[in-house]
Each structure stands twice: as structure tokens, then as C-alpha cells.
């Protein structure tokens, strides 16, 4: 059964949930989630990027949690910029929380920051990205090929060119590195 088909078959069960207040926006790709997150936050909506509940989990998934009462307005915002979700699903079960712990390793001349399974290393003096390691999704080698050798200010952000959860984790490490 396709991901979408599976979602549809579970929709009735979700609609009978005892907590009608929360819903999730489901997109085809993580990159669309990242784009929608940026648009909705910019528009002032209180949303969270989370992991999907087990019954609709397929692989490299990420969803946006929204207050269902604002569903129509949120959908309008996304449709206006050509990024509508595949589905809106009410949820009652707890959603997975993305990693929010960072670890860093100081090599003296270089600083490495790790978020989940992704590590970003920068030369402190110049801000040049010298290495990207970890991860297992196919955009990691692609992100590395586009970012390594460039300064933090010049390099494309993983949010712009990444598509997976590993790309999203690298974005968190990238933001943490810029924050420092």
C-alpha cells in the first residue's frame, strides 16, 4: 500500500480521536516540510516540526504539528505559495520530538558541532566549512559536495538544498555553528 493510501485507510480512526485539537500536515518530501516550516513561522503561526505517529511512518519522515482550529488559515497560507500538504491528519498519540541536543568538540584550530547523527566542522579563524560527516541519507554526500570549502556565510544552507532528516539535522548543526 502506498504511503498516501495508508494514510487514507487510517484517516477514519484518527478522526475519532479524543483529542481533536492537534493535527499534522503531511508532505511528500522532508524538503517540503522544511519549506513549509519556514513559511508558516514567518507568517507567525505557532507550529512545530515533529516526527509522525507510528501508523503513518514510512521512512525518512517529518511532519508539521498545527492547532487544528487554524487549519483553514494555515492551508491558505501554504496554498498561496504553492506548497500545500498532501494531507491534514488529526492526531492524539504523542509525536516524536526531534533531537535538540548538541555536542561540540574543539580541535583548537577547528570546531566540530554534532546534531543527532550529523557533524559539521569549521575552521574557526576563517569560518570555512572543512568537513561534514555522519548521516546515512543520500543528500549527505550532496550537501557535503556543495558546502565543504565554502565559508559559513557563503555556503548554501542545508535547509535550502537538503531533503531528508539527515539534511535537517545538519541544518540544526549549521544554525548552532552560526549562533556561536
Amino acid at each position, binding site marked *: 500500500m502506498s504511503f498516501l493510501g495508508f494514510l487514507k485507510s487510517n484517516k477514519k480512526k484518527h478522526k475519532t480521536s479524543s483529542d481533536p485539537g492537534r493535527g499534522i500536515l503531511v508532505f511528500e518530501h522532508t524538503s517540503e516540510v522544511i519549506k513549509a516550516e519556514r513559511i508558516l513561522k514567518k507568517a507567525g503561526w505557532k507550529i512545530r516540526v515533529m516526527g509522525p505517529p507510528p501508523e503513518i511512518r514510512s*521512512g*525518512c519522515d517529518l511532519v508539521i504539528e498545527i492547532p487544528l482550529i487554524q487549519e483553514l488559515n494555515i492551508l491558505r497560507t501554504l496554498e498561496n505559495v504553492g506548497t500545500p500538504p498532501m494531507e491534514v491528519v488529526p492526531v492524539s498519540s504523542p509525536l516524536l520530538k526531534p*533531537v*535538540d541536543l548538541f555536542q561540540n*568538540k574543539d580541535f583548537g*584550530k577547528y570546531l566540530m558541532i554534532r546534531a543527532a547523527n550529523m557533524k559539521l566542522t569549521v*575552521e574557526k579563524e576563517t569560518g570555512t566549512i572543512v568537513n561534514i560527516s555522519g548521516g546515512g541519507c543520500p543528500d*549527505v554526500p*550532496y550537501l557535503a559536495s556543495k558546502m565543504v570549502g565554502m565559508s559559513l556565510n557563503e555556503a548554501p544552507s542545508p535547509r535550502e538544498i537538503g531533503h531528508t532528516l539527515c539534511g535537517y539535522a545538519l541544518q540544526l548543526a549549521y544554525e548552532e555553528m552560526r549562533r556561536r
Partner: protein
Amino acid sequence: MIGVVGTVPDPDFPLVTGETRLKDDSIYIRGKRILVNRGTPALLAAAIKTAQVLDQGAPFGYLVGDVGLGHGSRRLYEYLSGHLGKRDFNTIVFHYLQPDVDCHNRVLFAIEEMERRPVLIADAGFMYAAKMSGQSSQYDLFTPDIGELAFLADEEAPHPFYTRGFILHEKNRAPELIARAYKYKNAARCLLVKGKQDYVADREGIQATINSPLEEAMEAIGGTGDTLTGIVTALIGTGMEVTKAAIIAARVNRVAGFYAKPTPATQVMDIIRQIPTAFARVLGEN
């Protein structure tokens, strides 16, 4: 013969299968060239170097372009589901693919159709799918890094991105995480955990710890885990027992890193070049 399954970071790279070759800093397959940087090309380069040292044939590659949208991975999954059952490999390693549980399961069905069951190794995205599918015990070897080990140990996490905070690794917690991964049946028959210390473990516990030489910079260098997976794959391809191969591979990868005199800015090809010299030293010690 060993089979290597993975992706390359080029959206226009077609699905290609065939014998692989390493020349200078590039992998060649069916006349197509891929620069060795990290990911599956780094795994292949290390496996080819190792096969040359051991006088073995070159790995057979199954490669496709994918930059994270999953289109290439899905084409490759589909191809494997239809073709793998008719092939004969003694070892197959699955590497950087978009994690997809349904597609993963179809590939496992195809493997069941093979006349002889190959040694199965999984790393990176394919290992994530294997764990999420609940089929980890079908594999002979997983090669996680310490962050991925925490993911294997977290019975609820579908991806390392969701590893719960209380499980995320801290110093010296690898033995506990290994035990937890086996407890919840989320580990392969053997684990080779890559990190500051490398661990070789099975359900009975840690069988070996490899911690020298220690080059702190290796953790920052993209592709050093891929090279270790490539080396162990080629060793297992000779018929070597998995645990023994994992121990030797860990040692060779560390020695190759040592000879490369790495900094956090070193690129992985500098380490791959040192694999033959590292083998000479490690095999001389044994």
C-alpha cells in the same frame, strides 16, 4: 564476488550496474566516472583498494544518482527486487539509500530467492530501514557510528534524528547501548561500532575493542566510516569470518588514518591511499 549497493550525489546519474574500478580519485563503472568524496563512492574505493591487496576481484556495483529526494533510491530498490534473486554474491553491502521500509522488505524477499544466501552487511540509510522494519536479525553485520548505535538502542526511534535524549550517547556508554540494541532485537548478528574506540560485538557482548592508533581528527572527516565498511566488506568477501574481519578492518582503517597524518580538514581520499600500507603493517602484526 561482493556486491555494493548505494547512491552517488548526482541527480543525473543513471542506474548503473557493473564491475567497478578505482583510478586516481575516481570510481569508474560502465564508463561513468564518480569522484570519491564520501558516501558509497568512498566505501567502494576502500573496498577496491582492499580487494587489490588481497588479490581479489573488483566489487560489483549497483549505483544510482540521488540527492535526497529518493527518486533514484526507489528505482534502485525496484531494480534489486526484480534482479537480485538471480545473482550470486558471497557478500552484499547496502549503503546510502533513502530509508524506506516497504522497499527494504521487498529487497529482502529477493535475497531469499538467491541460490545461496550471501553475507549481508548494512550501513547508513539502508541500516536505518532494516532497523525500522524489525528485520535487523536478518543481517550479519551492521556498521553504525556511535550516534547510529544510540538510534539502534532506542527501540522507538525510526531515524537517528528522533533518538531520545536519555539514550543519546555520552562518553563510555557504548557497551550499554550495544546491550540495549540486542535486547530489543535491533542489531545484526555482529556489530562493528565506529568511533574513538571501535567495538566488535555480538549478542554475547563485546568481543573486541580497537583503540589504537588514535587520531582524534578522524571523527570530523566525512567518509571515514564508509572506508571502514568498505574494508570489512572486502575482507568478508574473501570468506573470512565476520568478527575476525571486523577486528582487522577496524585496525587497518585506524592505521590508514594514522599514516595520512590527518587534521579535521583532511579529505577521505588521503586516507584511502594509505590502505595498502596499513594492510602491510596490520597483516605483519598478525
